[in-house]
């Protein structure tokens, strides 16, 4: 009941005319960005980080949340009409959505996706309201060792769950940690990796790292491999669903969140796994198995609903534990740091207006999205025709604005370019970008918590594992690390009879 009361207060915040305006700006920007090829939600929020210097936190986060949900919404449009999903979460939408569009049922595919996002987002956010205060209460007296354990979990999760190569993920994480070391040590004032430079003594701003890796790195990478003659989007009318479609889609819409929400809350790669799981589930349960691969509407409805619900799940662990499980959450965490706000169990106590305003604005945003996107879909589809030189020149332009706004210093632009070139190299050699960003954002905090914990225990390592919470988290980490080893014997058992092959 307490949560409901707080939520009502939150609606009071979110429905003020100005915040309503920011929510609308957020969902419009988010949808546009999601539709635009080449810009994902993480890059979008990163490029908009400079507004944190001018906006108050409530307004900024209401806008960011709108961008997050809006970009999910928009991303599926690209997948369905263009068949070249940019965001990993939208890959599944293309599997059935694009064949539907080719068969002239693009409008139905878009409607199934839009309503799926609405249902998934709605159910996910209700679960968020129900669960987040409880998680925050449970975690409210966690101390330095627990925080450190959580951050180690984030590091391990992004390096070993995501991506195909653990070594490359780890390399990326260590690069991020190294960038995070630059500057004055927060506890002693010792200069580290500054080489006597005053500019570096302040450290490298998280905004510059995020914008450099996500925006400049991506723009340069695409520039080096720009597709000649971009794919033509399939023209589409106003989305609608008839009764037969509705009968096939309402169950997938409701099932999606059950898969999406839990996967969003744990560090397992955001919407990628749940959308795929939802796809497989719907395929198994479908009565129209012959249509799969040729445009089965359940294959759009379920995964899209799961995707939005996973975004809500992501917010649970981000707001209550300060644990970012996706790139967008990582960049939003950076925004919290810009305001000097520490997300975590105390956030609900210290910043109730911000948290509940943010959560209420998610509901507002979803209604806005549904109201805007169904009628505007043909207009959004036109965005797919934007000349690519303008698109990527615009990304470079706004990246420069963002980096310069950090401190009004030219040297920041040079650092931005260097980090952008680093991001380019990482894309070339398959080093994932997310671990590096997580390393920069969480690294300094993790070091502080580690040292604080060891100070309390007077240097004894047992001080890191003396709470049940920390022990639980380390147990999860061990399972994550041992997963490939556990999986291999299982697979061998299943593949008996085939020649045994030693994997490296």
């Amino acid at each position, binding site marked *: 009941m307490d949560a409901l009361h707080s939520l009502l207060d939150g609606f009071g915040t979110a429905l003020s005319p100005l915040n309503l305006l920011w929510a609308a700006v957020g969902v419009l920007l988010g949808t546009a960005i999601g539709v635009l*090829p080449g810009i994902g939600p993480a890059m979008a929020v990163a490029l908009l980080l*400079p507004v944190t210097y*001018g*906006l108050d936190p409530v307004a900024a986060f209401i806008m960011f949340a709108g961008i997050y949900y809006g970009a999910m919404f928009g991303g599926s449009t690209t997948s369905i009409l263009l068949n*070249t*999903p*940019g965001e990993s979460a939208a890959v599944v939408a293309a599997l059935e959505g694009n064949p539907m569009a080719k068969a002239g049922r693009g409008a139905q595919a878009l409607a199934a996706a839009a309503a799926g996002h609405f249902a998934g987002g709605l159910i996910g956010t209700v679960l968020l309201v129900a669960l987040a205060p409880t998680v925050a209460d449970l975690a409210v007296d966690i101390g330095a060792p627990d925080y450190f354990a959580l951050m180690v979990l984030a590091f391990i999760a992004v390096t070993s769950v995501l991506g195909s*190569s653990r*070594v*490359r993920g*780890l*390399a990326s994480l*260590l*690069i991020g*940690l*190294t960038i995070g*070391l630059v500057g004055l*040590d927060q*506890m*002693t004032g010792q200069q*580290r*990796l500054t080489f006597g430079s005053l500019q570096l003594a302040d450290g490298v701003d998280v905004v510059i790292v995020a914008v450099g890796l996500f925006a400049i790195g*991506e*723009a*340069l*990478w*695409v*520039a*080096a*491999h*720009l*597709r*000649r003659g*971009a794919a033509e989007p399939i023209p589409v009318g106003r989305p609608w669903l008839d009764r037969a479609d509705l009968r096939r889609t309402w169950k997938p819409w409701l099932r999606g969140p059950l898969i999406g929400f839990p996967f969003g809350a744990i560090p397992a790669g955001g919407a990628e796994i749940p959308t795929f799981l939802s796809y497989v589930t719907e395929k198994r349960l479908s009565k129209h198995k012959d249509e799969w691969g040729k445009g089965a509407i359940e294959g759009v409805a379920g995964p899209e609903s799961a995707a939005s619900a996973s975004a809500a799940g992501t917010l649970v662990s981000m707001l209550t534990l300060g644990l970012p499980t996706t790139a967008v959450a990582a960049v939003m965490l950076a925004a919290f740091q810009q305001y000097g706000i520490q997300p975590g169990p105390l956030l609900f106590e210290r910043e109730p207006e911000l948290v509940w305003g943010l959560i209420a604005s998610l509901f507002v945003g979803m209604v806005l999205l549904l109201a805007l996107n169904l009628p505007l879909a043909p207009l959004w589809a036109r965005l797919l025709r934007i*000349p*690519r*030189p*303008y698109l*990527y*020149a*615009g990304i*470079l*332009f*706004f990246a*420069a604005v963002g980096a310069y*706004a950090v401190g009004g210093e*030219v040297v920041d*632009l*040079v650092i931005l*370019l260097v980090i952008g070139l680093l991001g380019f190299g990482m*894309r070339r*050699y*398959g*080093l994932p970008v997310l671990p590096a960003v997580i390393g920069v954002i969480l690294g300094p905090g993790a070091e502080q918590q*580690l*040292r604080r914990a*060891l*100070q309390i225990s*007077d*240097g004894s390592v047992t001080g890191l594992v003396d709470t049940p919470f920390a022990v639980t988290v380390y147990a999860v980490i061990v399972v994550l690390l041992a997963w490939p080893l556990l999986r291999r014997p299982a697979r061998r058992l299943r593949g008996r009879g085939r020649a045994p092959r030693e994997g490296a």
Partner: protein
Amino acid sequence: MTTPADPSAAPAGRRAWLRDHSELGVCGMLLALGVLVLTDALTMDVDLTQRGPVGPRTVPLVVGAGLLVVAAALAVDVLRGGRGHAEGGEDVDLSEPADWRTVLLLTGVFLGAAVLIEPAGFPVAGALLFWGAAFALGSRRLDRDPLIAAVLSFVTYAVFDKLLGVPLPGGPLMGAL
């Protein structure tokens, strides 16, 4: 590896091997970074600042050592035939070789804008950045490109400087207006 009989083929073979194994450069970079972090940590003078059992040196030592280990592990992986998969995307065509000219041009345009932003002001430098980048990326609409660049740059300046209160340099142009 087999030794080619024709001596003139040897350098070509080596070049091809290096191109195939260019990812070893990443290992080299990680190695250099690790050495840098370790050197910085070990030359740190911590006697005055040490408080508590863990000083400012410990974490850099761990990170530096980690970089060395990862560099070695990656080298092993590459020599065994492992490859990092270049990232795909909506507008990315990996079947063509990389277009280095565009990347260099964009880098140059960006640096040029960085140099200009203070003397010329943001509206001018920003417009040149957008136009230059669009030009480098292959847009040749001389009637449209500069106009879009100027409008975008000016509107951004107005929004950030006047509306959001994030100061951007106006330069002589804004001073004159």
